[in-house]
Structures are given as structure tokens and as C-alpha cells.
């Protein structure tokens, strides 16, 4: 019984992904072709996998936030920009050596993400502020902070709002390819992140705690779960995920572009969670669904690009998809639909 329920939960996301892939094949017949060029794998599917990595990581973090606090973290894109700016600023723009060891810069990047998450978490869990309002603060201030972090000395004066570059080849490995390996590195990072998260949630009671808190925080507290701490943890985790995504994004373009890194990512992440069959009302969650949702969105994006839609116009289609999904998920729609079906059955019975 439970198994079949679980299967049906993943049914919709998988169906959406297959639909997306079929549409893509129709648009571009060479969609599934994979070849090796310059020693690395090359093809549409690889590209979609590669490009969806940041989104997968963000979606996993967002899933937990939605599950525990019944709200969404809309600051993920801005936090990504902050983390990327911290990382690139620390590494410096020298041609010969990094200003600080890479490990330290990566650590600080993830730490910056987690710190932003902790700020959000504090507001939500301790001060009981609606998650979206609390994260709205960093949503706006985040890019400003990232701009101020991206400062460069021009004629002896530090000027903020610059695009900083990392000029060392080895930094590109994180978002590109490690020499001798045919798969893009982000795929490994995302896979490892998802695996570790799943083990952490399902092999310990943490996942269950998060669901309990999401379904009923008061009941959770009464059975002895520290709801505040659990919600705080999910926000820190989401911030950490944003930091990791920011690291990959900055490595892809080996620079920190405070205006464009993670732009519109918050909608994509929420969309991925909703597409994965997770309710935006909190409670039960399904990480695998979110991952599939993230890949579906990237397939949709790639497909729309292939149809000649420009990056500026993409949000229109995504917005329509979001509204459709949340409408179909809503209790009110289900109720109206149920009444409609009953009426039809009754009419048939009467006839």
C-alpha cells in the first residue's frame, strides 16, 4: 500500500520529464546523440544534466525549507551571488597563484551561504516571521552585499560593483571538467550532495522530524521535538546549498557577476519542488521528486532555447507552468473537481 502510494507520488514528475524529453526529441532529432569531443562527453542530454546541477542542489535545500516551515526561501539566488562574490574575491585575480588556498576560499564560500541561511533561519524560527517576508530581506540586500564584496582596487581606491575574474586554470575544474574525466565535475558534486542528504535524512530520524514539524509544529513540540531548531537547521542547510550552487556558478564563468549569478533561480527552485510532487504547504517531502523536477525544468529551458525563445522571455512560460501546477495541487481545485465528478456521476445515474 505504502509502496504504491510512493510510486504514484513519483509518477507525475517522471511523466513530466518524459514528456519534456519527447518534445525535445521532436524539436531537435539529434537530442539523444552523445559524442566525445576534445576528450569530454558532448551532447544535449549531457548539457542538460550539467546545467541543471545548481538547480538540483538548490531544489534539495528548498525542499527541506518548504517541508519544515511551509514557506519558501526566495533569497537563494541572491545568496548564491554573495557566496560566489566571497569566493572569487578571496581567490584574487593573480595569473600565477591564488591569494588564499582554494580549500579556504571554498570553505568561506560555503560558510557565507550557511551564514545567510542562518540569518533567514533566525528570523523564521525564532521571531516567527513568515518565511517569504524574512527571506525577502536578503533577496534585495543580497545582491547589494555581493556588489560591495566584488570590489577591486582601481588607482588605489577600492571600487565596488566590479566583475572580478579568477585567472587560474585549476579553478575552472569545479564548474568544468577535471582533466582526464569525461563527465562534467558539477554532475559529481550534485550527485554526491543529493546522496549525502538522502542518507542523512532517511538513515537518521532527521527527515521524520522535519516532516513532523512541517505537518504540525505544535504537535511536534509536544512530542519533544525542538521545532525551532529543526526549522533553523533547514534554513542553514538551504543557505549552504545556495553557497555550493554559487561556487559552481562562479567556477563556470570563472568570475563573480553579482548581477547575474543565480538570477531568477528562486522561481526555478520553487518550481522544481512543486514539479517534484511536493506540496508547497509543507509536511511530507520527496527529494528524488525535486531532483527530477529540476532536470525537467532544465530540459524545458533547453527546449525553449532550441525553439528560439530568448532568455528574457523564458519567465513567461515558467510562470504559466507554476500557476498551472499549484492550481492543480490546490485543495480548492480538488474539491471543485470532486464535486464536478460527483455531479456527473449523479446525472448519469439519474438518466
Amino acid at each position, binding site marked *: 500500500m505504502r509502496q504504491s502510494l510512493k510510486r504514484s507520488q513519483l509518477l507525475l514528475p517522471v511523466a513530466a520529464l518524459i514528456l519534456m524529453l519527447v518534445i525535445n526529441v521532436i524539436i531537435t532529432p539529434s537530442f539523444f546523440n552523445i559524442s566525445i569531443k576534445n576528450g569530454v562527453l558532448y551532447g544535449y542530454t549531457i548539457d542538460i544534466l550539467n546545467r541543471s546541477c545548481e538547480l538540483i542542489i538548490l531544489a534539495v535545500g528548498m525542499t527541506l525549507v518548504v517541508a519544515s516551515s511551509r514557506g519558501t526561501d526566495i533569497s537563494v539566488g541572491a545568496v548564491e551571488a554573495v557566496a560566489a562574490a566571497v569566493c572569487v574575491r578571496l581567490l584574487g585575480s593573480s595569473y600565477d597563484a591564488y591569494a588564499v588556498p582554494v580549500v579556504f576560499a571554498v570553505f568561506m564560500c560555503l560558510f557565507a551561504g550557511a551564514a545567510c541561511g542562518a540569518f533567514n533561519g533566525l528570523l523564521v524560527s525564532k521571531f516567527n516571521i513568515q518565511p517569504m517576508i524574512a527571506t525577502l530581506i536578503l533577496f534585495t540586500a543580497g545582491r*547589494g552585499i555581493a556588489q560591495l564584496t566584488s570590489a577591486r582596487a582601481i588607482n588605489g581606491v577600492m571600487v565596488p560593483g566590479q566583475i572580478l575574474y579568477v585567472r587560474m586554470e585549476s579553478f575552472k575544474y569545479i564548474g568544468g571538467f577535471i582533466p582526464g574525466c569525461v563527465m562534467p565535475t558539477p554532475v559529481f558534486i550534485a550527485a554526491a550532495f543529493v546522496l549525502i542528504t538522502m542518507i542523512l535524512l532517511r538513515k537518521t530520524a532527521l527527515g521524520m522530524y522535519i516532516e513532523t514539524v512541517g505537518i504540525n509544529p505544535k504537535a511536534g513540540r509536544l512530542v519533544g521535538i525542538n521545532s525551532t531548531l529543526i526549522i533553523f537547521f533547514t534554513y542553514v542547510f538551504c543557505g549552504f546549498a545556495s553557497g555550493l550552487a554559487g561556487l559552481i556558478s562562479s567556477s563556470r564563468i570563472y568570475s563573480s557577476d553579482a548581477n547575474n549569478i543565480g538570477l531568477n533561480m528562486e522561481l526555478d527552485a520553487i518550481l522544481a519542488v512543486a514539479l517534484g510532487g511536493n506540496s508547497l504547504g509543507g509536511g511530507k517531502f520527496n527529494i528524488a521528486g525535486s531532483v527530477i523536477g529540476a532536470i525537467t525544468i532544465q530540459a524545458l529551458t533547453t527546449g525553449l532555447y532550441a525553439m528560439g525563445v530568448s532568455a528574457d522571455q523564458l519567465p513567461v512560460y515558467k510562470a504559466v507552468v507554476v500557476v498551472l501546477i499549484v492550481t492543480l495541487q490546490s485543495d480548492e481545485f480538488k474539491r471543485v473537481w470532486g464535486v464536478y465528478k460527483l455531479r456527473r456521476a449523479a446525472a448519469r445515474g439519474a438518466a
Partner: protein
Amino acid sequence: MKKQLMAVQLLKKKLDGSNFLLFVTIALFVLMYIAGIIIFSDAGFDNFQTFLNMLIDNAGLIIAASGMTIIMITGGIDISIGSVVGLVCMMLAYTMQNMGMSAWMAITLVMLFGIIFGAVQGFLIAYMKLQPFIITLAGMFFCRGLTAMISVNQIAITDNATFLGMASKDIHLLVGSTVNKHGVRMYPFVHPSVIIAIITLVFIWYLCKYTKFGRNLFAVGGNEQSALLMGINVRRTKFTAYVLNGFLAALAGFVFCLNTTSGFVEQARGFEMDAIASAVIGGTMLTGGVGTVVGTFFGVLIKATIETYIRCNGTLSSWWNKIVLSALLCFFIVLQSVFIIIKNKKKN
């Protein structure tokens, strides 16, 4: 003695609840303004025109924030207004500049668009009971994308005489004149946009305070369940609030366009944040049921004062605008939350 005591008690009662937050806001604005006059006296901060310029620059924001206040009183939120403003500017620019439509025709068109857009969002939120944030987030991206679909290039309005006339007409006030260094008497002036904003503000204030619809808004925001039991049509009240907000967002876009006389994709990005921040700083509760447009007006003025500070200072990056405003917003949100916690403790 007794009278004095009563007066103190009356004052305490007046300062209770939402009035306290409003009082903090007004006090903060007065403090900031006086501080500005002292610090930036050489940069012309004490000039009356500086104050009017704040109104001119933020006329659109005053209208949009009034709409946001209404939505927040019902307990909802609308983060699509920034993109609606951007889209309205683009529509105005495109219809007037590229299609040669008359100014009045174009304005009617965008107002209609605002109402329809508000109605769609209102339907989904009030009747389908979807989370306002998700719907308006989708609306935000929808409008921003639509703006890019109309044109990815900037369109400046240069040909429409009616519109440009409206945009740059100086309405001189009869008081507060100064004599400049050439010995010419200068009267302070405002643009028509400020007049529109003030009229809207007074209208919304009246609507909230003295009409049935306005009182219903507070009832719905305060406690939906009891509002329903009192026989208020909760759904229709919410729906109407979103339609009105859509109209106000379009009006704000028109006023915003009077200032910029152009349309481009990135216009008014983050505008919704300014509107929310102004409303929250002005004492509107995020939980619904409490708020006044008077407070929101002072919220906008505080935001404008910060902007003027940073402009007068000259060396600070414009990014500080957003950061300082966010910090203020954070301060007020936490203040509200502490306020609620204290109130709950008192009840127990």
C-alpha cells in the same frame, strides 16, 4: 491632577497597538530629516524643494505602496507590482512611440491591463485559495518576461506631446519661495504626478477608514474565520482588494513612466521590495488586520530620506540604498514580532 492622569492614560491608549508603530515611524522620519538638515546643510538639504523632490521622485512608490498596504491589511502580499510597473512603462512607451497611439488611449489601455491582471491574481488567490506569494511571484516573472517580449531594447517616449507635457509640467506652490543667487524669486514646484499620488493617498485613506469595504478589509485580515461568521463575504473582499491593487499598480506604473518617460526591461526591478518596506516601516502588520496608508506615506518618506542622504554624501555607492533599507525593514519586522510576543504574553 485627575485630568492629567486621564490624559496620560488616554495617551497610553492611543499609543497602544498599531499606533505605537506609527508613532515610531513618524518620530524616526522627523529625527532623520532634522539630522539630514544638520549634516547636509551645505548640500541644500534644508531647502523646501529638496522635500518636494522626494515626493516627485517617489510619487509612483506612494501609489504602489498604498495598494500594497491594502493587500497587507487583508493578510496577503503582492510582489508582482514591480514587474507590473515595468510592463506598464514598456506598454506606454511602445503604444505611444512605436504605434503612435494617443496618450489618453494608451493610459486607458494600461489601466485596463492592471485591472485584468489584478482580477486574475485575485481570482487565483481568493477563490482558488492559493498562496498569495506563489501566485504573485509567478505574476512577477510573467510580467517581466512579457516586458522582454514587447521589446528588449529601451524605448524612449519622445514624440507624444500630451504625455511629455504631463511629465514635465511644473505646478508652482504659492508658499515657501526663495530668492536664488541671481536675485530671482523661485517658487517651489511639484509635477502632476505628485498631485495624482496625493489624491490617491487621500482616497485610499478615506476608503479604509470610512467605507464598508475598508472596514471589511480589516475584519478579513484580523481573523478570517470570525469575519466569515459575521457574514462578510471574505472571498469577494479579498478579490476586490487584489483588483484595486492591480489598478493602483498600473497607475503607479503610469506615474513612474511620467518620471522616466521611457520603457526598458530592467525598469523598476526591486520596486515591490520598496513598497513592502515602506508599508512595513509605516506600521502595517505582516500578519494582517493592522495598517494605515498614513504610516505607509511616512515609510516612503523615510526611504526617500535615505536616498537623499546617499545622494548628498556623493561618495557612497548606490548599493547602500538597498542595504540600508533592508536593514531598516529587518529592524521593523523584528520590532513587530517582538511586539506580538509581548502582546501574547500579556494575554496569558
